[in-house]
């Protein structure tokens, strides 16, 4: 349990973040640090990881738990290497988000909220991601995948599978063509 420790690189980043806030307000860095922690420790925040973050910020563990449980991007249970988050709201819904979700459920043989047996994918449906003009869309790690078709979804999923890599919000994003 006590072997949880950030890499030196992450620790340096954490220290830099804490310095952004006035004296005594280091707790402001909590959410950014939880993002780093989730990316570094297998995509989710275990109680032990949260306790470690509390110790870094010199706050009570409960102050970390109550924050981690409030925000939808923090996972409090283990997840697959790629968390596929499909927008299910308004414009995406008008333009076929349900078909995308249903297709992924079949393709991955999971239901929304579930993780594939091989631990590669978790499927989630989420609320509007601010990409309604390119609906339907989904997010995986740092990347937005827009104007989805079922074929496009297939290609993407195959790509994630063959790379086998974990995808995190904090990753360097793929180049975007805008």
């Amino acid at each position, binding site marked *: 349990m006590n072997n949880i420790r950030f890499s030196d690189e992450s620790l340096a980043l954490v220290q830099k973040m804490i310095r952004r806030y006035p004296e005594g307000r280091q707790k402001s860095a909590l959410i950014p640090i*939880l993002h780093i922690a989730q990316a570094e420790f297998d995509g989710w925040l275990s109680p032990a990881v949260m306790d470690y973050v509390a110790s870094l910020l010199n706050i009570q563990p409960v*102050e970390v738990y109550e924050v981690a449980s409030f925000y939808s991007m923090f996972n409090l249970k283990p997840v697959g290497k790629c968390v596929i988050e499909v927008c299910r*709201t308004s414009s995406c819904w008008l333009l076929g988000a349900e078909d995308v979700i249903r297709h992924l459920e079949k393709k991955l043989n999971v*239901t*929304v909220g579930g993780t594939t047996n091989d631990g590669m994918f978790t499927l989630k449906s989420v609320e509007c991601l601010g990409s*309604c003009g390119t609906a339907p869309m989904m997010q995986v790690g740092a990347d937005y995948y827009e104007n989805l078709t079922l074929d496009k979804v297939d290609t993407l999923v195959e790509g994630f599978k063959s790379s086998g890599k974990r995808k995190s919000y904090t990753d360097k994003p793929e180049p975007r063509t*805008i």
Partner: protein
Amino acid sequence: MGKNLLLEHDHVPGIQSYEVYRKHGGYAAVEKALKQLSPEAVVEEVKKSGLRGRGGAGFPTGMKWSFLAKPEGVARYLVCNADESEPGTFKDRYLMERIPHLLVEGMIASSFALGAKSAYIYIRGEYFYVSRILENAIDEAYANGWLGKNILGTGYDLDLYVQVGAGAYICGEETALLESLEGKRGNPRIKPPFPAIAGLYGCPTVVNNVETIAAVVPIVNMGGDEYAKIGIGKSTGTKLISASGHINKPGVYEIELGVPVEEFIYSDEYCGGIKNGKQLKAVVAGGSSVPILPAHLILKTANGEPRLMSYESLADGGFATGTMLGSGGFIVMDEDTSIVKNLWNFSRFYHHESCGQCSPCREGTGWMEKILHRILHGHGKLSDIDLLWDIQGKIEGKTICPLGDAAAWPVAAAIRHFRSEFEEYVKHPEKIKDVQHYYRLNSLSEA
């Protein structure tokens, strides 16, 4: 005609970089503000411009700035609201991704006007990749002497930081945002005190939307009086509209306020008409929270005047026959859209996003979602429609923050304008297709 004050250079190759941005006149507003104007004079220009908050409420920005308390020896903050989570809204992402330096420049000019020495851009966590673009722009601004100590040799110091959230619509509400920025749950605060008196860390704070802050750049450059000549009446300047749904050309459009709605929907310059040659059924004109209007009322007011894209014209007729400009999230629905299903989708959103502090919102949003679900699946009663009406009325105005209103208004408007459609679901459950599927999706998405 489209009028470009914010997006004039958005298609210039490399405009994300400092060099290209500067070559196209970037940072002139900071130069002018810091070297030629006093902080008070910048506030005065913003007042004269008539600029109104672009985050949704449309509160006059100059007036908001003049409310900022200035006690001796107490820090003041400017916080940019880049949480952008109102369904149908994606203009801030577009602006930050395309021309990040415009926001940085606006933050510097605005912070100077307010006397802030530290400023934060709070951006929704899902926009992580955009936060990197902003951080890069900020690094470039530091490297070129626009941020840091003694900017342009004027003695003015400013530090600017980007803070990411972690997924919560409520953090767009300004006091919830401040809580989140302090490393807490996003529970809205009771007002008063307003942020202008006690905001971030209990210090006087101004919270403004991304687009509002970006608009300060052209206002400083051209002067408030010139800016006020653009637009119509009290809707001055330009507005970014996020257009989506069943249209041929979804995207972000900068319009001069006052463009007729009909032109906006049908002209090739903007939405390019309804997709697949279908008919227009309804529009949600300002993000999911504002009342939905049927085609005849969005194109013309109840008095038969052409409806314009402006704060006043969209609100003409009150909630009985009008709506709001809101965040400018313009969602278009064609003739095949089910208003009942769409409303259920919105209600699920508000239920999911209620922070849970106030009982009317926490419980009421869940009840509304459940009743709509029931109607949608052919198990509704006619009295359910009145029950929905009753519940929304008991949420509106009875919560700490306006999320409750935002959840109530769409329900009221859908029933007001499309009651017969709800009745059809109740009276003819045999016509409802796909019932099985909806049951399944809903139960699973709660997992």
